[in-house]
């Protein structure tokens, strides 16, 4: 016992030499993340979740019909709440697309409106970037399909009426009058289409907001990625020292315990500024997370203390990974692959509801998935007793496996 405690103390001292680098880098990340978030929010003057998409229109704006149509869409259509429509020339639009200031631009060919009015609808190219598919740009194709469908159905109605006039010898002198009146009714219906929906927002009740969800996901991602930092410290090429310690009655379990405690302390110290600052910023200054609105430093610290079971399980997993590899290169790659793979299926990048049921089930079984849902429950104030028990059980099992691996490696050395 005494040897184990001495070994733990020595490991803590070793870690203390490493801590300033890690904490300094974390603080730099904090400042950079905070500055980037603040700049983004200031730039958009609203929360990131409700940012509108900017879309360019390239065409002959001197054409009255096109100009009128765009003005009507910008001022009267329900899309004004989701899209910022910018009238641009093609060169500017291409440059803005390259700088990712717009998600794409529609090129309306010369004479398109006149041709459409005489029954020949041409093609409109919607130019976009192929790389960097993200959540905000994935609706592009859906939106374009919707516009195509509206155009086609409206045409069907107007042409059918024209066919009836021509085939049934209705007063042909009123052909244009009826065409224009029906087209005006269609335009009116397109602009009023959102009035067909009676929208009721019931609030988020005890569920988590999108901001709160992403905060818990990103916290788990950061915890998992922090495992890379200590690879040079804990990955052993040779087992001479553990073997010597084993011969001096410091068992594999005691060795693992001593090393793990020091690593856990470093991770907690490392996560503390990042998590608390993000909580204060996201809940207070920016209200990205409504659940944390008005939270003081004390409240943020209390939540952080409650985060510790999640840190326990994640660090135990990382510790097992350290034991499974014998070189820094393999160790870093393994930590990264596990961090990214587990974060991905645990819903740290996309909300877990985006994934198929099988992946959601798998997520509920992984330590990272449980940690993420535990943090979500903590922020939303939901029930988290079962998740807490699962995290503690995982910690014990993973550390036990790490100790067994160390024992086997000492034996084989």
């Amino acid at each position, binding site marked *: 016992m005494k040897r184990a405690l001495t070994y733990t103390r020595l490991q803590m001292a070793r870690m203390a030499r490493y801590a300033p*680098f890690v904490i300094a880098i974390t603080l730099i990340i904090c400042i950079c993340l905070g500055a980037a978030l603040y700049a983004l929010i200031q730039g958009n003057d609203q929360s990131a979740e409700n940012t509108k998409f900017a879309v360019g229109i390239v065409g002959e704006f001197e054409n009255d019909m096109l100009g009128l149509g765009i003005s009507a869409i910008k001022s009267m259509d329900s899309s004004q709440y*989701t899209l910022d429509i910018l009238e641009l020339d093609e060169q500017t639009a291409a440059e803005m697309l390259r700088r990712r200031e717009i998600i794409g631009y529609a090129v309306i060919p010369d004479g398109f409106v006149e041709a459409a009015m005489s029954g020949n609808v041409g093609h409109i190219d919607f130019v976009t970037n192929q790389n960097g598919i993200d959540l905000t740009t994935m609706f592009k194709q859906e939106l374009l399909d919707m516009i195509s469908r509206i155009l086609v159905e409206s045409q069907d109605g107007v042409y059918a009426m024209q066919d009836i006039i021509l085939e049934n010898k209705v007063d042909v002198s009123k052909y244009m009058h009826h065409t224009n009146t029906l087209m005006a009714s269609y335009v009116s219906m397109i602009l009023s289409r959102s009035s067909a929906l009676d929208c009721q927002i019931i609030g988020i009740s005890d569920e988590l907001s999108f901001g709160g969800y992403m905060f818990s996901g990103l916290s788990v991602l950061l915890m998992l990625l922090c495992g890379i930092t200590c690879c040079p410290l804990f990955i052993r090429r040779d087992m001479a020292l553990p073997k010597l310690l084993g011969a001096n009655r410091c068992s594999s379990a005691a060795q693992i315990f001593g090393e793990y405690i020091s690593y856990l302390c470093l991770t907690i110290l490392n996560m503390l500024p990042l998590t608390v600052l993000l909580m204060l910023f996201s809940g207070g200054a920016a209200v990205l997370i409504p659940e944390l609105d008005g939270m003081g430093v004390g409240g943020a610290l209390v939540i952080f203390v409650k985060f510790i079971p999640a840190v326990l399980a994640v660090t135990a997993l990382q510790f097992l990974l350290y034991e499974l590899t014998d070189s820094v290169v393999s160790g870093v790659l393994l930590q990264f692959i596990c961090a990214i793979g587990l974060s991905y299926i645990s819903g740290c990048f996309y909300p877990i509801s985006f994934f198929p049921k099988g992946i959601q089930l798998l997520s509920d079984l992984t330590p990272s998935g449980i940690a993420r849902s535990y943090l979500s429950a903590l922020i939303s104030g939901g029930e988290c007793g079962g998740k807490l028990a699962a995290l503690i059980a995982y910690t014990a099992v993973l550390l036990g496996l790490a100790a067994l691996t160390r024992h086997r490696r000492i034996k084989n050395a």
Partner: protein
Amino acid sequence: MDKILTCLHRFLILIKRLLRKPGFVAILLTVPLLVAAMGIVGKNADSGIVTIALAMQDSEDETACAVVDDLAQNSRLISFILCDTPADAHALVEQGDVDAAWIFPADMSQKIHKFTQHMHHNNAFVAVVQREDSVMLRLSHEKLNAALYPHLSRTLYKSYVTANLTLSELNAEQLDEYYTAVNADGADVFRLVYAASQQTANDADTNYLLAPMRGLLAVMITLGGFAVAMFYMQDEARGTFDRLPANRRFVFSLSYHAASVVCVALAALLALFITGLSVSFVREMAAMVLYCVITVGFCVALRLICRDIRLLGALMPALAVGMIVVCPVFLNIPIPFVGYLLPPYYYLNAIYDPIWLLYMVIYAAVIYALDYALFRIGTRL
């Protein structure tokens, strides 16, 4: 020629040194397997960005059934769940199991007719219940509008003809026939075109589960470079390179880093080809070769700047997060200048826009000049 062969021979020895470790080989093989598994799940599974519960007040209503069928059959990004009753759909929203519920009324065609006569909120006929108001849900309303529009359009046309053309000999069925007979060609009014290649897009491009894979693989290759930089520092501290003349160490350190980067890059390429994410063999190979070159230069530069394994270790998670955020992996955030410092930014753009291959060559020239300058400064210190 002999010098080149000797360099190649040493490079292969360095690769062999890594590949002799079964753990390293197993990790490399895991990469394509994991990506392939995600690919299979992503292509076959039923999932969506937004989940919507659909319910009908009268499950026999033909119009409501047609709208529900249309929605269920033409969905790429929205996942629909069909509920037995409106109350069930409402409950799913309250429980947070779905993002919204769309409830269709009984006698829907009558309600549509009423709406086309007076298009204001008092005549709204589809009840939308949602937990919060977000851009994604507002966009999903457009999907609903698109499904309702054919019925609205047909009703508006019939009402107009009946009220204004005074044709008593045409009944409702005949009016429908006229409408259906037009069948205007315009399903492809919009063509999605990619800016760089000017190629037309297809639906397969929007698999959001697989979309970030290339970016993550690119970040992994860079991480492989950092890992070998740490390995090099450990070897250097151990005196492994003491017998190597100082003037040869620069080239040696480059090939040392390249050995790991090439192995990880091969695993990433294999993953891209297996999952069908690759664009063309030539473009993939050209971009990957240049990416390996600039990644080696970038990792050597960071090693020479940090000079302390602890600092490099502490920097790695920060750089990984930075690369994931700044480069177009998950998000498309325009952060000026920072992206130009990171190798994955060039690689991810070069895959779709060949001009970035040229930028990679320029980046390589700059980064290797910086490497050499840092190396010279380091040897003088």
